[in-house]
């Protein structure tokens, strides 16, 4: 029995129960009254009435059982009849179940992801109060510039909007003391991080107020995954000392398996949480308002405060701070604070893609419904005689409609079950198709919400495709149906028009989907056409991390010279590795399409006097061969050399974007000009050294194919050596083996330094495109299915139309009509339907594709070429689908056709 009828049964049974009780009570009362009239005492009267009844509960149950038995018998009859009908037309049943299962399955699959990613609230108490706090410099359109420690304190103590506010500082960590140094994903936070989120440790504890120190405190908390990986899930892990970036810490707690940091990290899920006040070494102390070293901040708003209310209060607060510290906050910079709900922040731009996909599967299901409705209509025509007879002998129309709906519900129940089963057996394979960095992917599961959705969408589907044909059939005019029925064919003109209308709507729906997929495809094509400014083929990258101990005394790489010497030695060694043509090293932001860019404001010497907008550029430091390894062109001047070190002149390279913006006449005008770079405070900027531009290089699309080219400034690694570094190797050697070789060389120089994330640049680029490709592929598949279904639909209707008109065609041929005349007739009729569908579809697409806009690149949502091409394709395919049956109809022998009656 389907869930639907079971649900109806429950409601009905409840009502029946009350009815039976009322009925029996009425009986008892009447008997008691008569007994009284017969002279019994009231007590006797009641007793006698009850005694005659015997066990009243039993009577009640028996009576009720009769009702239910009857009801089940009717339903069972309907079901048996439905099953028989379905078995009698196995072809139809198979097609119906397959298409339905496909439609429902696709919907359930996408909904499962939508539910986990978008609808399910974050697993924290009052998740709506959690926000990410971003600092922007509005005038230069620079976002997420980071916060300074005094600003954090102001937000915490004086802004009046936060219950709790906490720094989020993702960083590489280097665990030493084991066999190998191991890089971990670490998260530095204030001590209130876990209490702010409202989560507890699974084992041990999180932080206590005593852990809130200016610098790092000793207790750290580890993730469940890291506990299993590094400690073999040892329950006695608490109290274990670990050495992280050279300093000793103690494991104080292990988080539960389901807990994940709700935000972006460097590379992977957080392994280890450490707490600090960010106001003592290794952070600059004493703290300075203008140094925005805190990369991210998360807060919990006061209860009852909406995000927009909090934002308004913060805007006032920021204005007040700007007046109070005019030197730190020059009006020209437009410093502002922006709140983003954490849920939205975690999900990011995936929202649009998922909604587009969700809409697409909705369309597919609609098309499936329309298709089935059509098939059922055609089939019902042949059953009109049966229905007319049943009506004539006194069956109620209601009973007939219920009967026909039972067939639909049975179909949908089978298909829904098949779909659910398929989705959840294939769940893991399906998830592998999704891009790995899809947020909250781990939360995807068969939750009650998903089951409920599957249930409702199945019911809706069953009613949607079953109701119209059922009503149509049961409405059948008895006399004509009987008469038409006797002629063997028979369906009213009205019904045929309705069929055509269904096919036209099917074509319209498919067209919208196809145009959407076409636009995404063109966008992707355009993206691949974009020259990224570097050649990712045959380049392998790896990352290294020099530990940053809390006490500079313990830091062997504290000085620029030490770090520069280290990088130089590493570079010398890896360049000599067999199979390596050329090697380079850069700071983490030098890696294109990987991670967050680093932006710095800068001033050009001699143009600083009148600045409304302080310009910003993305900065990275690189070794001389970086551009050769990436095959990025030198436009003017020279690359870095090994002599661009701490002893030499401070030099920078700029890219074409920056050169064109400030020296529009000629790139070489930039050569010899000087820049200043700083965190944005005017006085600090003035104190910054002058960097001489020695070369102009080609643009590298570091933020992705679809991002506008941002200006870049490159510094020499030997003048600005980073702690974290990316190694680039131009080679055709196997990246896995090469990774080991690089690790060997690095650890030969310093055995405590980890090498991680060994990847080819091709991989990085394709991972960057993965989300888009995923959306494109899925939408493409859905659109293809839609096209197929629409073709089947029109084919079915045309076949049916012509089979019904075999007689007429026979007469026409007998009277001398040519086959081409018949074909023209068929095409004419098909064209009307197709044209109607295409026009409606084009209009629909013009409206619907607006929602795609943020996913498009290099093509407008109303791109005429795409519209025309897709409409042409659809017209061709559907016309072909109606030509085939027409052609077949003309082949018929007029004699047989005439006898077809």
């Amino acid at each position, binding site marked *: 029995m389907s869930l639907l009828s079971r649900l109806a049964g429950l409601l009905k049974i409840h009502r029946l129960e009350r*009815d*039976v009780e*009322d*009925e*029996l009570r*009425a*009986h008892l*009362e*009447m*008997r008691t*009254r*008569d007994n009284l009239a017969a002279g019994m005492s009231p007590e006797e009267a009641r007793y006698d009435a009850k005694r*005659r*009844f*015997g*066990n009243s509960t*039993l*009577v009640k149950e*028996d*009576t*009720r*059982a*009769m*009702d239910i*038995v*009857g*009801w089940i*018998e009717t339903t069972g009859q309907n079901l048996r009849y439905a099953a028989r009908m379905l078995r009698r037309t196995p072809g139809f049943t198979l097609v119906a179940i397959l298409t339905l299962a496909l439609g429902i399955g696709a919907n359930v699959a996408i909904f499962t992801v939508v539910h986990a990613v978008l609808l399910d609230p974050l697993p924290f108490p009052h998740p709506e109060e959690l926000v990410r706090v971003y600092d922007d410099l509005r005038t230069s359109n620079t976002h997420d510039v980071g916060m300074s420690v005094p600003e954090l304190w102001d937000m915490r103590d004086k802004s009046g909007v936060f219950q709790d506010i906490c720094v989020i500082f993702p960083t590489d960590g280097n665990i030493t003391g084991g066999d190998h140094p191991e890089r971990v994903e670490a998260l530095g936070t204030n001590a209130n991080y876990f209490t702010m989120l409202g989560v507890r440790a699974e084992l041990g504890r999180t932080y206590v107020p005593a852990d809130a120190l200016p610098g790092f405190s000793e207790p750290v908390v580890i993730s469940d995954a890291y506990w299993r990986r590094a400690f073999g899930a040892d329950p006695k892990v608490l109290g274990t000392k670990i050495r992280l970036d050279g300093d000793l810490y103690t494991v104080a707690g292990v988080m539960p398996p389901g807990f994940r940091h709700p935000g972006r990290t460097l590379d992977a899920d957080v392994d280890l949480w450490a707490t600090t006040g960010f106001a003592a070494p290794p952070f600059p102390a004493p703290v300075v308002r203008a140094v925005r070293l805190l990369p991210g901040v998360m807060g919990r708003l006061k209860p009852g405060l909406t995000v927009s209310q909090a934002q308004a209060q913060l805007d006032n607060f920021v204005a007040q701070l700007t007046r109070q510290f005019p030197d730190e906050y020059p009006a020209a910079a437009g410093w502002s604070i922006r709140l983003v709900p954490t849920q939205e922040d975690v999900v990011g731009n995936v929202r649009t893609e998922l909604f587009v996909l969700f809409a697409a599967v909705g369309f597919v299901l609609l098309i499936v419904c329309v298709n089935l409705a059509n098939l059922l209509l055609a089939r019902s025509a042949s059953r009109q005689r049966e229905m007319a007879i049943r009506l004539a002998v*006194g069956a109620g129309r209601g009973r007939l409609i219920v009967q026909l709906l039972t067939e639909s519900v049975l179909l949908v129940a089978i298909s829904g079950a098949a779909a659910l089963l398929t989705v959840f057996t294939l769940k893991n394979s399906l998830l592998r198709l999704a891009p790995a960095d899809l947020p909250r992917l781990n939360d995807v599961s068969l939750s009650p919400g998903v089951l409920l959705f599957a249930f409702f969408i199945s019911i809706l589907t069953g009613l949607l495709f079953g109701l119209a044909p059922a009503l149509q059939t049961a409405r059948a005019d008895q006399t004509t149906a009987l008469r038409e029925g006797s002629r063997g064919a028979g369906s009213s003109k009205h019904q045929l028009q309705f069929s055509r209308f269904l096919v036209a709507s099917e074509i319209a729906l498919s067209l919208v989907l196809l145009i959407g997929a076409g636009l995404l495809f063109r966008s992707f094509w355009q993206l691949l056409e974009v020259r990224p400014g570097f050649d990712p083929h045959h380049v392998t990258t790896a990352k290294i991390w020099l530990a940053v101990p809390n006490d500079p005394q313990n830091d062997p790489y504290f000085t620029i010279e030490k770090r520069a010497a280290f990088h130089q030695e590493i570079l010398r060694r890896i360049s000599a590795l067999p199979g390596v043509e050329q090697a380079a090293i850069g700071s983490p932001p030098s890696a294109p399409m990987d991670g967050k860019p680093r932006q710095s404001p800068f001033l050009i010497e001699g143009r600083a006097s009148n600045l409304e907008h302080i310009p910003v550029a993305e900065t990275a430091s690189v070794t001389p061969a970086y551009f050769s390894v990436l095959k990025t062109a030198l436009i003017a001047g020279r690359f870095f050399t090994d002599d661009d070190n701490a002893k030499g002149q401070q030099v920078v390279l700029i890219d074409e974007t920056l050169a064109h913006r400030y020296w529009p006449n000629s790139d070489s005008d930039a050569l010899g000009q000087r820049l200043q770079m700083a965190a944005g405070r005017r006085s600090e900027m003035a104190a910054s050294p002058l960097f001489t531009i020695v070369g102009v290089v080609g643009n590298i699309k570091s933020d992705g194919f679809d991002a506008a080219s941002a200006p870049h400034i490159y510094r020499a690694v030997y003048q600005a050596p980073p702690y974290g570094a990316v190694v680039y190797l131009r080679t055709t050697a196997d990246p896995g083996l090469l990774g080991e070789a690089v690790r060997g060389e690095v650890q030969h120089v310093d055995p405590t330094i980890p090498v991680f994330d060994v990847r080819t640049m091709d991989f990085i680029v394709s991972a960057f495109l993965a989300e888009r490709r995923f959306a494109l592929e899925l939408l493409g598949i859905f659109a293809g299915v839609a096209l197929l279904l629409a073709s089947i639909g029109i084919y079915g209707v045309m076949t049916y139309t012509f089979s019904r008109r075999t007689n007429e065609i026979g007469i026409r041929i007998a009277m001398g009509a040519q086959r081409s005349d018949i074909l023209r007739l068929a095409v004419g009729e098909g064209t009307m339907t197709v044209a109607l569908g295409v026009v409606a579809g084009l209009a629909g697409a013009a409206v619907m594709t607006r929602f795609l806009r943020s996913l498009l690149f290099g093509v407008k949502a109303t791109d005429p070429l795409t519209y025309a091409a897709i409409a042409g394709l659809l017209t061709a395919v559907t016309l072909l689908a109606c030509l085939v049956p027409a052609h077949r109809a003309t082949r018929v022998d007029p004699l047989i056709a005439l006898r077809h009656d």
Partner: protein
Amino acid sequence: MAKPKSDVLQGTLALLVLKTLERGAMHGYGITLHIQRVSSEVLRVEEGSLYPALHRMEQGGWISAEWGASENNRRARYYQLTAKGWKQLAEEEKNWARLSAAVASVLQFAQ
């Protein structure tokens, strides 16, 4: 407990109910009273079998039920014959006539 003699014979309850309803719509209590009175108190309908039987016949489509007001304005469920029920009644009456005639001839033969 109940005297077996006065119980309605197995299988005849439906006939008696249908026949009773021939006179018009009636509620359950009314049906028991009618059968008892007309049979001169010989036949007694057990409440415990009457109601399940009524509901079974309703599900079978022989009778239909409707809530109505009883003689003294209480809510009661009134049963009434359907077209199918009329046919059934005729059928059962015929069967009963045949059966009782058959029983009678067996008894006469034995004498």
